[in-house]
């Protein structure tokens, strides 16, 4: 690429989340430098103090919860040419969705006990429930290999479509012993791949942090979990952990 070519300006923003996905980016090392040949990072709270409102691509991390956050993310949408929901809190609602199990009062009581007069609970939503999102990078945390792949693809103008096949595909290609084989229960069969079967490869079960597939075998997986002695409540909990917002949205759509 020639020196005078205009670099793509990238900015990172965080909402309700742990900022762990941004932190992942600091582990990119030399890949990060490679990216800087085409991009200029103009706002990145995790790693620099400068900031700018002029950017082409906005990485939005975290769930949108309060009115104030809605306004802020709308402004970001106006400023950016491309909005990427980065990490599961942004792309799915993620674990923040668990808050939806409680009423506002209950949530405030549990989280902000004694300080709840001036703190809000908010209603956690994935970014696309508030503004239009162009691309999704899932994961809790996001996987750097996928992030690089997605960014390259977006910079090439091709956009990025995450895999629509389950984690099992990547797990089996690594020739892992299936966790079901070991009597453990795994959400791999209904969870979107792209992480390289990160958790199962290290002996942990899949928590569905990358969200359900477009067409998950909910019935098959439910029967499967029942076969392993799980109750409907256990199963709902397993699906809920990262997918609560999507499941609520699907219920809403069914009502209509």
């Amino acid at each position, binding site marked *: 690429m020639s020196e005078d070519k205009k670099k793509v300006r990238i900015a990172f923003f965080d909402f309700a989340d742990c900022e762990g996905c941004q932190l992942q980016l600091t582990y990119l090392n030399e890949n990060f430098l490679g*990216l800087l*040949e085409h991009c200029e990072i103009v706002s990145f709270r995790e790693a620099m103090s400068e900031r700018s409102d002029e950017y082409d691509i906005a990485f939005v991390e975290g769930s949108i919860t309060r009115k104030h956050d809605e306004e802020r993310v709308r402004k970001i949408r106006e400023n950016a040419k491309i909005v990427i929901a980065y990490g599961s809190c942004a792309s799915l609602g993620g674990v923040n969705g668990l808050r939806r199990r409680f009423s506002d009062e209950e949530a405030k009581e549990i989280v902000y006990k004694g300080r709840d007069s001036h703190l809000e609970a908010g209603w956690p939503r994935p970014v696309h429930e508030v503004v239009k999102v162009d691309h999704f990078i899932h994961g809790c945390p996001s996987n750097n290999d996928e992030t690089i792949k997605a960014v390259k693809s977006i*910079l090439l103008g091709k956009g990025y479509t995450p895999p*629509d*096949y389950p984690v099992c*595909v990547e797990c*089996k290609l690594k020739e892992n012993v299936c966790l079901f*084989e070991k009597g453990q229960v795994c959400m791999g069969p209904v969870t979107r791949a792209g992480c390289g079967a990160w958790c199962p490869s290290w002996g942990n079960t899949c928590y569905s942090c990358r969200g359900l597939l477009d067409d998950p075998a909910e019935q*098959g997986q439910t029967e*499967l979990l029942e076969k392993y002695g799980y109750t409907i409540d256990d199963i709902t909990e397993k699906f809920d952990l990262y997918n609560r917002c999507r499941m609520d949205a699907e219920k809403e759509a069914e009502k209509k």
Partner: protein
Amino acid sequence: MRYVYLAKDDLGKFIDLLKEKHRVVAPVKKENLFVFADISGGEDMSLEYIPTIIPPKKYIMPQKESLGKFDMGEVSMKDTSIEMEPTVIFGMHTCDIDGLECLDVVFHKDPADPYYKKRRKNVTIIGYECMFPCDEYATCVTMDTHVPKAGYDIMMTDAGDKYILHVNSKQGDAIIGSGNIFKEADQDAIKKELKDLREKKLPKFKRALNPGYKELQPLFEKSYNNTGVWDDVGRRCVSCGNCTAVCPTCYCFDVYDDVKLDMSGGERGRVWDSCQLNEFAEVAGGENFREERSSRQRHRYYRKFDYPVRKHDKFFCTGCGRCTRTCMAKISLIETVNDLAKGEQDV
């Protein structure tokens, strides 16, 4: 070609001999299962094993491989040739040897797949005959793959305190000729011994599939619309793609381009794909020819028991039982085929 003996105590020496000129891979234990992996000596391997998680096809058709590199703006590819050191796949079961023969049919058909062909040429197969059925999932008796026939360079058969080695190729002969641990003996006597061993072995192998070898393909010809069976399988299936990943005859792959960070070029590669995945039969415009899990599962069975018989005159099921063994939803090939046969009787 010919038969020789190898004393069991000399198995380690046999591996050492092979390692002088080859990379040696063999079944090794992984938790409660087995995988083919590199071994440094005979003590690393577990010759008495049930079929490995992934079949040894991975050495000839790796899960993911580079097909070459490209520069942006250039039409032709570069670095398209691959290197593979001479490799011995040691202890392959007859079902997996049959699987490799299926892949040979597909990949060697004109125009041959150059990557497969090159790897295949560098592989020596030393089989190990099963003297006991591995478990309740295998259907090798029906598929007629439980007795060694062809497709190997050397076949080893357990004969008490020694192995009988059937040397079946020039490659195999060269290996036997390079060592002094093999004992020559009267060929007719060895053949007789082998025959007796097999007579004792065969009654231990029971048929699991109700339809016989010759009845299988005609059964499938009539079962395409047996919605009872296919819907039941489809309902239970979670589309994890395990059954195809572990199948010794599945060979579908997806081609991808991986562009370098500086965008000056990249690499083209391929990775195993699966007909069980939602995206597999999706085409431009979003049409999906096999949207339902039931139709995807049915497709898999037809790619084993019907289509290849018409096209290549060969079943693409080796009876290894891996698809049943690996299925967490417990979809069983034996049950499915027997259910189809039952439906056939009801009609």
